[in-house]
């Protein structure tokens, strides 16, 4: 089965600082993978490279079988991205934001899809509210709605549960499970490892730009994680 995400020998430098070195892994369809690591370990950089927002310096990076450098537009069609910011226009309502992005992605039957996605995230009553009037939690839900609007088979999410309340987190978990059964792939970074580990089948751990763990999420508990992150430049552990 073709890999949904394939990375091999990925390197990225910012000026003279190395953000990512020698990263390699594969994610297949129907896999939900959690990306862990301390601040500055390169999680956001990796997600941005996969999302075609940042160019890699070296290495193979393929998303959905498409090369991120040369087939960026094709990649963007099949990915849903949540970043540190919500990507929403404050002055517009949730519905207007979704309508705009829906037109950019050429989502068919847009109005129906907007209601559908709003239903998934509990935004039905907030569709006509301006984004700037929403609480942080609901803004994050709207950001997730934006990412899911065009029903992408691959999700790249950078700390997607930031600001979500219990209901929001529950809905998010359901969305992940649903995507998994439909053969989609999810890579999401997390800061709340204990809470979110159960959502994932696999885990990748980054430390100082290197991949130090690649295996089942179940094989990772707080102790192992702390140990991995303590050693600098630890050898990769493949389970």
């Amino acid at each position, binding site marked *: 089965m073709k890999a949904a995400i394939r990375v091999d020998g990925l390197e990225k430098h910012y*000026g*003279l*600082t190395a953000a990512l070195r020698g990263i390699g892994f594969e994610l297949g369809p129907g896999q939900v993978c959690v990306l862990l690591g301390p601040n500055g370990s390169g999680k956001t950089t990796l997600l941005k490279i996969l999302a075609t927002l940042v160019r890699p310096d070296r290495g193979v990076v393929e998303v959905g079988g498409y090369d991120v450098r040369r087939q960026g537009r094709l990649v963007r069609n099949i990915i849903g991205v949540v970043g540190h910011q919500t990507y929403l226009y404050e002055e517009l309502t949730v519905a207007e934001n979704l309508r705009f992005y829906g037109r950019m992605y050429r989502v068919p039957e847009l109005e129906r899809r907007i209601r559908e996605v709003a239903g998934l995230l509990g935004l039905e009553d907030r569709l006509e509210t301006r984004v700037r009037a929403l609480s942080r939690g609901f803004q994050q839900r709207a950001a997730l709605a934006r990412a899911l609007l065009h029903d992408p088979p691959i999700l790249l999410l950078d700390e997607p549960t930031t600001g979500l309340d219990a209901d929001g987190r529950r809905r998010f978990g359901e969305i992940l499970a649903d995507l998994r059964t439909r053969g989609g792939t999810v890579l999401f970074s997390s800061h709340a490892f204990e809470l979110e580990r159960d959502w994932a089948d696999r885990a990748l751990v980054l430390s100082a730009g290197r991949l130090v763990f690649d295996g089942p999420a179940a094989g990772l508990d707080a102790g192992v994680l702390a140990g991995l992150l303590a050693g600098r430049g630890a050898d990769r552990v493949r389970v």
Partner: protein
Amino acid sequence: MGWIRRLEWLDLLGILTGLSLMAGLYFALVYAPTERLQGPVQRIFYFHVPSAWVSYLAFFVVFVASILYLWRRSAFWDRLGRASAEVGLVFTTLTIVTGSIWARPIWGTWWTWDARLTTTLILWFIYLAYLAVRSYIADPNRAARFAAILGIIGFVDVPIIHMSVVWWRTLHPEPVVVRAEGPALEPPMLVALLVGLAAMTLLYVYLLVHRVMVEETRDDLQLIRQRLAE
């Protein structure tokens, strides 16, 4: 290229530049005959015109370096562009100042909106804009990219600016009869001008090379600091 050999080559260039500058001074101030209409002040012409030539040459180099940087993304082209802009700004200032000094006794005014001088003034501002882009933007890669964009747009624009200024000038009659570049050149004057041209160009190259080397050294130092910190 070992640094020893490079040092020798630079020394040679330095000596050559120094000699040509002295020759230029001699040709401009002694060898060339005094111009009948304007008197000794006209000798500024031998500095003014070569400076102007270098100002535009330097911007052409910025243009080429900008294109090559965007194509190749190698730090060398970025350094070359920045260095040429800095040296070019100096020569442009020199052009404007010598033009002004020349204008005062001849035309009784510090400035004339002559087409070439006006275009050079605008070029001065474009240089400034190019360097401002570098200073104002924090990320060095982005700064280099943006400066390169401006280098290309600026250079393409210069002939258009000149054309529009010339058209504009034709509606404002020249206040004086004497043309900006002076009278027709007798052979000794032409020689003096060419010597001046060569001297200024050599000076430009010499300063350019040094400036690029300073940037290289600065980047190397940063690299060493980085490695030590790890």
